[in-house]
């Protein structure tokens, strides 16, 4: 077990460590986190001379305008994390936001409930209940074109035919052109081809005990794995909403690995680099 190294030390380095070089000679991404059973990153690794990719962390803001979150239907983790990330990225924005659901997503994971939304978002929700995935994609695109929206959340179930690589590329381009971020929640979907700038796997995680009643469920926590990102190396975090902002911690059960340079659980200074 190696001692965890501060990530910042690597982030400042212009060349990757020799340790991080792959067997085949191809350079690996420094600081990449390969958890148990997780696949190697799909991104082409940064070349040796290129700038080192900074790690994702909450509060980074503005980096990705099109993210995909893969979640399961029996939990609201995808929507919860999407809203938390949106709040994290655009705090203080008072414009409304759009939440688009197709029929299957509505049936599988329910409808937004205003009393349970984060207080900063309650009065800003505009909900679109689309019948088909095609209608939902149309609504997402129109929402991304709108300058009066602060962000757009989409929820689609499964791998509909309409959401092809071309369609996702279209969404990315519109989102980038107009600067309106999109969080697309994919419920019970396989990791298909997509041009999303960040792709996450999300699940619920055991919540930290609340202040007064240790037997009660606490504030929400999610286990999030960033498995593909254009601007960041992949990684795995436990994210929670502490009431004010999004907080990242490392997974509780991280495997020891020589290349594993993961911060300690709850150690925020490491995660934020």
């Amino acid at each position, binding site marked *: 077990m190696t001692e965890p190294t501060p990530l910042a030390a690597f982030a400042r380095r212009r060349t990757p460590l020799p340790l991080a070089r792959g067997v085949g000679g191809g350079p690996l991404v420094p600081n990449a986190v390969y958890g148990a059973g997780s696949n190697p990153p799909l991104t082409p690794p940064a070349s040796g001379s290129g700038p080192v990719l900074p790690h994702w962390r909450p509060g980074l803001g503005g980096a990705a305008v099109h993210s995909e979150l893969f979640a399961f239907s*029996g939990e609201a983790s995808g929507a919860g994390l999407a809203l938390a990330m949106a709040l994290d990225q655009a705090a203080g924005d008072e414009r409304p936001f759009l939440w688009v659901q197709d029929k299957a997503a509505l049936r599988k*994971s329910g409808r937004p*409930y205003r009393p*349970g939304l984060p207080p900063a978002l309650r009065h800003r929700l505009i909900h679109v209940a689309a019948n088909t995935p095609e209608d939902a994609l149309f609504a997402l695109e129109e929402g991304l074109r*709108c300058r009066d929206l602060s962000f757009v959340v989409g929820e689609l179930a499964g791998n509909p035919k309409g959401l092809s690589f071309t369609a996702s590329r279209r969404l990315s381009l519109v989102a980038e052109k107009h600067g309106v971020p999109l969080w697309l929640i994919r419920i019970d979907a396989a990791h298909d081809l997509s041009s999303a700038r960040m792709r996450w796997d999300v699940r*619920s995680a055991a919540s930290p005990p609340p202040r007064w009643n240790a037997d009660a*469920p606490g504030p*929400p926590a999610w286990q999030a794995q960033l498995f593909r990102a254009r601007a960041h190396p992949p990684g795995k975090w436990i994210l929670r909403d502490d009431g004010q902002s999004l907080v990242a911690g490392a997974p509780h059960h991280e495997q020891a690995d020589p290349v594993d340079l993961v911060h300690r659980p709850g150690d925020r200074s490491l995660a934020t680099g």
Partner: protein
Amino acid sequence: MVAPQARGAGHHRAATRPGYAQPSLAAPPSKRRGESEIPFALLADTVHGLRLTATNAAARAAGAQVGAMLTDARALCPQLKVAPGDPAGDLAFLERLALWARRWGPWAALDPPDGLLVDTTGVAHLFGGEAGLLEDAARSLAARGLSVRLALAPTAGAAWALSHYGPEQAIWHAGDSFDDLPIAALRLDPAVQLVLRRLGLKRIGQLSGVARDALARRFRTVRAPAANPLVRLDQLLGRVPEPLLPVQGKPVPLAQRRLAEPIRHRSLLDRVVEDLAADLVRSLEAQGLGARRLELGLWKVDGEVLVRKLELAEASRDGAHLVRLFAARLDDIDAGFGIELARLSAPWCEPRALSQRDFETAAEAHGTSLAACIDRLSVRLGAEAVRRPELHASHWPERAQRWLAPLEPARERQESLVFHARPLKLLDRAEPIAVIHTHPDGLPRRFRWRGNLHDVLRAEGPERIAPEWWRERGAARLRDYYRVEDGQGRRYWIYRQGIAGDGRGDTPDWFLQGLYA
């Protein structure tokens, strides 16, 4: 009663000062000079035979009353001359007269069957005072061969009362009382007048001798003012407003294209709609209006009319935007043998002073506005699909939120209580779960939902929510809500419907209603 040709019409007219003017034309028909000595009446064909609907002074003097059967009237006055009445013609005449009567005020309304109402606010000085105005009106109307009664008062109700039951050319002065006028001056239904007469209330002044509460209890109808003496009295005295419909029409902006060759193809139709939108936008611009509702009518060669309507979230007069919204609505048009006439109208407009730039290019460069975005969404997905949640005053979870149109202004509401954490998402219908618990009233140990087992590790509850007894039937059961978290960190909102032994059904069932973030 007024056959407009050669005969004149009897007719009273009243004008008011600051508020409204009330004319009424109730009257003896037909008198040309020299003919007034001959008894004359107009007839209507009713189910019980011919009845008199209007009589002149000579006929009344001879005993022929309005409403009498013709045979009865003939028995009293054998020399009575009659002619069939023409109610539609009378109304048309009254309408023309109303337009003409706007010479005494900018604003005139009909009071069918025989009255006119002119708003003379701020006009009297042009005629040398109020008396001069009435004098002028009497002279002009007499010159048209009409016999009229005129009155001028601050409210429409007062003008009506004075013109029908007051002195000739009455002008209301501050401090004048209506107490001596009969109850009929309140414009009440005959049945209500009968009730008041039987109660011994014959003059308006007598109404003030009765406690207002007592009258309010006796006459409960507030919808129809003619059935409620209190409302009529308040209108007479100007305590409640009485909106009136002026005769001047408001032209609906519209554009029309008559096509030389019936069109059958979509591309041509799109072109026609574009042209129509351009025309309509021009006429809207000229009036400083923006369209909120649009109607596109397509007349087909085979005699059918296709109508497509749409509403906009915000007043707009952008041609490209309108065309784009209609394009989605024209997909299911069946042109049949062709469309020969297309008309685009804007029945609902709102003032829109600012000129707006081209939507499409602006949308490409700077994004669309929220209103335009919502228009596009609701045209394709339906207005029901795009909505905004709004808190509703109910503690029953499903009823605590309602859905409104997205741009509808928020209503002032008390924020919900914060000490109960509510789920992020609610299932449209709570789903039954199979539960294993230690004892029937307690917390479940594990439950099965959608085929998956969930072990309850942590829980909070119960939060007991009783049904709304004023809305539900008596046997509705209360709910005990629990906030639970399972072994994988998934958080749910589950409830037990009822308590064992509450006498409202069998063993209580468990349901899962919400999902926490």
